[in-house]
């Protein structure tokens, strides 16, 4: 749709016309603010806890577990140097043999949410799939934070859809 609009504007005499080809979906997925009636709804991005511990594939579990527990967490997100999410460690994975590498024990390819998804939708999915926590990522897979089921349920009940 936007290419046709751009061409039409040019035909009307506009000299410098740009087409943001990835559009509103890309903007929302990146977690940027919007204006409008939906802007007041609580969404996954702001609910995601940004202080979630992260670790790399080649770390030993024992060291990661110590760091995660010291920070008061029972989960950690496995990322690469670009902060792209590669896996997740929940309570079960954190309890594995400490000598093993993260890439051997992590839960690969975890379910993720985009930052613009309303809290009520996140809550329903997490309850239905029994997910205690899920990473929130941008459209290019980079970590925004970790959303906890209890946070999503609380926000979803408060704000509705």
């Amino acid at each position: 749709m936007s290419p046709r609009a751009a061409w039409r504007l040019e035909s009307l005499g506009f000299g410098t016309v740009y087409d943001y080809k990835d559009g509103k979906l890309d903007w929302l997925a990146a977690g940027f603010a919007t204006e409008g009636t939906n802007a007041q709804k609580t969404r996954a991005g702001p609910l995601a806890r940004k202080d979630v511990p992260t670790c790399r594939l080649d770390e030993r579990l024992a060291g990661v577990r110590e760091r995660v527990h010291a920070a008061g967490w029972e989960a950690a997100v496995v990322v690469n140097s670009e902060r792209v999410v590669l896996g997740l460690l929940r309570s079960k994975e954190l309890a594995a043999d400490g000598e093993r590498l993260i890439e051997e024990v992590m839960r690969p390819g975890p379910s993720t949410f985009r930052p613009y998804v309303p809290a009520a939708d996140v809550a329903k999915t997490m309850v239905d799939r029994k997910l205690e926590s899920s990473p929130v990522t941008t459209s290019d897979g980079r970590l925004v934070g970790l959303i906890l089921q209890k946070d999503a349920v609380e926000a979803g009940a408060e704000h509705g859809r």
Partner: protein
Amino acid sequence: MPTEIDREELRRLVAGGAQLVEVLPAVEYAEDHLPGAISIPLSHIDAESPKRLGKNRAVIVYCWDTA
């Protein structure tokens, strides 16, 4: 010929004074639009459009995605 841009280029151009136009139906604009964007649905772009927009400033249009 219109120039395709990405998110970062959009932010740079808007900061420099470019006009931002959402061309989706007005109801979608009302729900969510980029900060500072105005609504001119595709079907409403006509000879009157130059009155709402400055012809001498850059214009950026967008819809939902690449479709």
